[in-house]
């Protein structure tokens, strides 16, 4: 059983092929290149390296967010289309969970944070219990201040994710000794983690397909109210 997994929820894009036995290949880029441009070449690159064809893939997995709306949508559209070609299973994995999974065996809490703009982060809390990743809270978008309030009594917390670029020094100042930070090798959500988590979901039969799989945006779209400047006239008074 081979799974092709991708993650495009942050500025980094990664692609991996994983089987029950091992991680076969992984490609990762964190450049200012657009996901829509780089994702398919990365897939092509690792499949070529593996002397594999996309027909050799049995299931497709994607980091389903939360994260950049456009990023997770590019990933989801690509994974849905791969699966569409031969109606193969699709597995969605929380990108926050994938990010936490990369911090295996840290003894305290694991708190992935993705930049959600407006001084907020997408986050959730995890812990490894008997070498198993356990989720302690649901994925959500919260302000960094609220997150700190929530975490200030915890003993040791490992932060990871692209939110570190913006908030690392602030977290370090406010939480002091109890804040730990993932190194740059493991900080971002990786397709290999998505693939690994997808394998266990697949084993449990928790699968989706190309029609029903959708990313998890968490937030509703931001909609500006209809612009007042167009409401020039009170229509009632001018109708003949």
């Amino acid at each position, binding site marked *: 059983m081979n799974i092709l997994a991708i993650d495009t929820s942050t500025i980094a894009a990664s692609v991996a092929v994983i089987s029950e036995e091992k991680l076969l290949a992984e490609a990762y880029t964190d450049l200012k290149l657009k996901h829509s441009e780089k994702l398919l070449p990365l*897939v092509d690159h690792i499949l070529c390296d593996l002397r594999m064809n996309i027909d050799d893939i049995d299931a497709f997995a994607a980091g389903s967010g939360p994260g950049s709306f456009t990023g997770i949508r590019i990933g989801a559209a690509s994974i849905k*289309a791969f699966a569409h070609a031969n109606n193969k299973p699709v597995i969605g994995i929380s990108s926050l969970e994938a990010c936490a999974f990369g911090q295996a065996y840290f003894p305290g809490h694991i708190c992935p944070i993705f930049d959600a703009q407006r001084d907020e982060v997408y986050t959730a809390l995890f812990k490894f219990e008997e070498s198993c990743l356990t989720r302690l809270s649901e994925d959500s978008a919260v302000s960094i201040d609220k997150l700190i309030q929530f975490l200030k009594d915890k003993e040791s917390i490992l932060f990871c994710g692209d939110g570190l670029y913006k908030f690392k020094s602030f977290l370090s100042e406010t939480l002091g000794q109890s804040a730990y930070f993932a190194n740059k090798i493991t900080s971002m959500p990786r397709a290999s983690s998505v693939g690994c988590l997808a394998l266990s979901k697949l084993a449990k039969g928790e699968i989706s397909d190309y*029609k029903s799989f959708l990313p998890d945006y968490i937030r509703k779209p931001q909609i500006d109210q209809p612009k007042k400047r167009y409401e020039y006239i009170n229509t009632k008074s001018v109708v003949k």
Partner: protein
Amino acid sequence: MDDKNVIILAIETSCDETSAAVIKDGELLSNEVFSQINIHTNYGGVVPEVASRNHLVKLPQVIDEAVRKAKISLNDLSAVAVTKGPGLIGALLVGVSYAKSLAYALNKKIIGVNHLMGHISANFLAGAQPPFICLIASGGHTLIVKVISHTQYQVLGSTRDDAAGEAFDKVARVIGLGYPGGPKLDKLADEGNENAYEFTRAMIKEDNYDFSFSGLKSAALNHINKAKMKNEAINKADLCASFRKCVCDILIMKTMRAAKDCNINSIAICGGVTANSLLRKNFKAECDKNAIMLTMPDAFLCTDNAGMIASCAYYKYLNNEFEDIYMNASPSQRL
């Protein structure tokens, strides 16, 4: 390359229409459109993020339906085509990402289509043969193009500010007709007197094929405010009729002039605005008078649809114009 049995699946997601079509050897086999118009009506216009999310939800089923109605299977395809731009970036990216990955997984060629070339190519489906002069008038674009061959174009003129459809929508909004303004205004105008209010025909005398429509909204507002100051009621139907006549006159006159100057006796019109009933009627009369052949695709081929993208893609296929896996959306792509 074998030019027989060329079967192409085309995808269009540039704005708020999710669409897929199948074309075989230049003949349209299916053209499925899911319009999100009811969703966006609530917001008074297209919300890009909402459009993008809905494209992702609807696209797989729209593709399946297009393939089913064409009575083919995905493996029969010669290529997958998609609108690259112009359009809303988030919306385009859904189509582009999907098309690229689907083509890759099926081991088929990929074709990127300019949305405006798509609009022009709707005329090939309606029987137009190049060379012809083409008017593209929609909510986002207004231009006159000399179509030299199925894949060669020369832009003669375009709008310097608002598109014709934008002007329709804005005036419709000013008098409270709601969204989408164009079709509603067209309907109300049928009941009005087209000579009741005066609108200046902007740039009509200038020796070029460019347009300007941004002043028309202000002109409509002036009529309303003037009436208000005199404590008179404005007749909405008359205002719509007069405004519509003005826009149609400008579009027709400039297009006819382009045909005359280029010495081409064939005109084609496309884009959402060309679904306007008066524009169609008057274009027909004017072309008949001047012995010019007129092609007007059916209304469903004039608004955004993947059928027109498929038509364009077919000629690109014959011309060996393919994209690679690095293809990206280009939201402000020009013709």
